[in-house]
């Protein structure tokens, strides 16, 4: 028995590997090709956009207004519009997202049905098509809230009941809420139980523990969530199609009730509805490059912070 085992082990396996492995190698090879193909596509997209966009990409392009019916000039207002959008969006979404995450990790009981419902809605929010948020923004924020405000305070004069940057930002904040919740929750979970217990044992109440022990430890998680949300919000176009984005504006938005230009919307409009698509091609590629740099670098930062959190947790 022992002898046969000794005989089989090394020979048997090495032989089998030599003989049968053609099929095995093929199968593994196919999966490898899938990986390489995806990565190749990714870099081809990146490469082409960088290559085509580089000639117009300059500081002047970023910092100047579009001129000559958007066939020349830069994308400054679109950049500023996107910036305001993500700032207002973050102001709305970050506190709510953080608090929801605190509820889920600190207050919700293990088998609570309510917590399960909250989790389910968060996940649903994450998969609802972005155009639905646009419809909701139009139906709820503009036609219901905005028109309601106009009716009660402005005597029916149309001011808030039309697309503007506030409604667009709030719509976007709903879309990015799950991103923040998930990141913060993950960060909260990495805080060791012992820290909480120590704080409670010293006589601190639950809220004091959360405020002074848990939250400071999860700042990086909140940051990751915010950055990811900003990256997502900067790139989404569907939710703002009819909640506030404008084709062309000669001035920057001055108040929250103004419309705004947006990088993604700019790309969409320029590439599909512009009178001379060929002529503005370099501008389109350069705009896409700017947007891509923005979202990818934000994501990279978030990934780096997140991997640090994970390493710390270990």
């Amino acid at each position: 028995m022992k002898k046969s085992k000794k005989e089989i082990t090394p020979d048997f396996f090495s032989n089998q590997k030599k003989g049968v492995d053609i099929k095995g190698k093929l199968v593994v090879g196919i999966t490898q090709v899938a990986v390489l193909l995806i990565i190749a596509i990714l870099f081809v997209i990146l490469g082409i956009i960088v290559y085509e966009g580089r000639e117009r990409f300059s500081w002047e392009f970023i910092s100047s207004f579009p001129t000559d019916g958007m066939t020349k000039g830069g994308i400054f207002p679109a950049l500023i519009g996107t910036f305001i959008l993500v700032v207002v969006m973050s102001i709305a979404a970050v506190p709510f997202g953080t608090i929801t995450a605190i509820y889920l990790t600190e207050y919700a009981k293990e088998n609570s049905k309510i917590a399960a419902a909250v989790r389910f809605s968060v996940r649903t929010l994450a998969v609802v098509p972005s155009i639905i948020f646009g419809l909701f923004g139009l139906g709820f924020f503009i036609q219901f809230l905005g028109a309601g405000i106009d009716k009660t305070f402005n005597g029916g004069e149309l001011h808030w009941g039309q697309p503007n940057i506030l409604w667009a930002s709030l719509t976007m904040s709903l879309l990015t809420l799950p991103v923040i919740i998930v990141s913060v929750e993950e960060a909260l979970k990495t805080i060791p139980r012992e820290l909480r217990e120590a704080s409670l044992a010293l006589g601190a109440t639950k809220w004091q523990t959360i405020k002074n022990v848990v939250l400071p430890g999860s700042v990086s998680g909140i940051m990751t969530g915010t950055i990811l949300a900003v990256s997502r919000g900067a790139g989404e176009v569907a939710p703002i199609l009819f909640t506030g984005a404008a084709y062309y504006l000669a001035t920057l938005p001055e108040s929250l009730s103004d419309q705004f230009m947006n990088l993604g919307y700019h790309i969409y409009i320029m590439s599909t509805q512009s009178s001379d698509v060929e002529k503005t091609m370099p501008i389109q590629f350069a705009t896409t490059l700017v947007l891509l740099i923005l979202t990818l670098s934000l994501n990279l930062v978030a990934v780096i912070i997140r991997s640090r959190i994970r390493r710390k947790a270990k």
Partner: protein
Amino acid sequence: MNPILQEKNNFTKESLKKQFRLSEFLAEKIISSVAFLSITIIVLIFFFVFKESLPIFNFGKADAVKTEINADSKPETYGETFTEELKPETYGSEPITQEELKPETYGEVTAEPAVTSTEDATELGHENNEGADKTWSTFFTTEWVPVSEHPRFGLLGLLIGTLKVTLIAMGIAGPLAVLAALYTSCFASKRVKETIKPIIEMLAAFPSVVIGFFALMVLATFFQDLFGYDSRLNAFIGGVAMALAAIPIIYTISEDALSAVPKTFSEASLALGASKWQTAFFVILPAATPGIFAALLLGVGRVFGETMIALMATGNAALLSSNPFESVRTFAATIGAEMAETVFGETHYSVLFFIGSLLFIFSFALNAIAEFYVKGKLIKKFQGK
């Protein structure tokens, strides 16, 4: 030991009872009520998206008056704010379920068990051919001509277009992403895995407008040169582009599912003499099927509702053909393209919202299936049935 413990226990209980801290109480209440916001948002989305589509459920003007009464008798479901939004003729105030539709017997509808399917409603719509019932009768046709003297809202053409694009996109993204996930979790060394995963997930950071733009400018030309078909933008281009959007989702979730298969499974298989690839394909992959199924469902959800790519790369013509190289128009793209041009309260506006509610219900259902099916299956599987 025992008495001390007891004493301590008593002490704690008493002190707990005495100390009611307002700040604690408030903090907990505020935090939990904010957390419920996400539930509220889901409900509100459903309510408002559906609400704007209600006018198309109105059959004839005479009925509109009766439905008003009906609405008044059910204030809880509405709130008065609802009536402010009323736009005169085409308005019908049906509660959220369309099952309650029953045109002829409207007055007593509350007394009757109201069971009428959508199809019945359409037939009834034919009978009193007036007002918004025309809209219904055109729903099951294939013509989408929303702006004309006699607007026709044939949803079938859009449905076929959406399905076509979804099929193409999933046909590409599904196998590619699952195979890539299999390689990452079963064959790749740890170091390789740690480089591959973030790179593929970086694809998720590409905004859909960028992918759409790339498809419009580069892919469309490339594939037209390659295959030499007529229409530059078509279902195939849209499908390829959407596959790019779906790959990171399917990949990430399937990779998680594959990695979650207990090590004992693969160890047992390897110990029985199976090779690595045999283990991967015949042990790990079947064990992770529920997770991969969920990943594919969520991928479908993403493709089905994807707007910007569809707008930019599919050509946006609602043609009826099985040829993948013809232009198509999807549900989401229709909303995106036409909403800005509609007038509030008009039939076209309501129909677009109706399409929106269909999309919402569909994605909601997909997510629910993915979630509950997977949880049930996986738990059963890994905890020894």
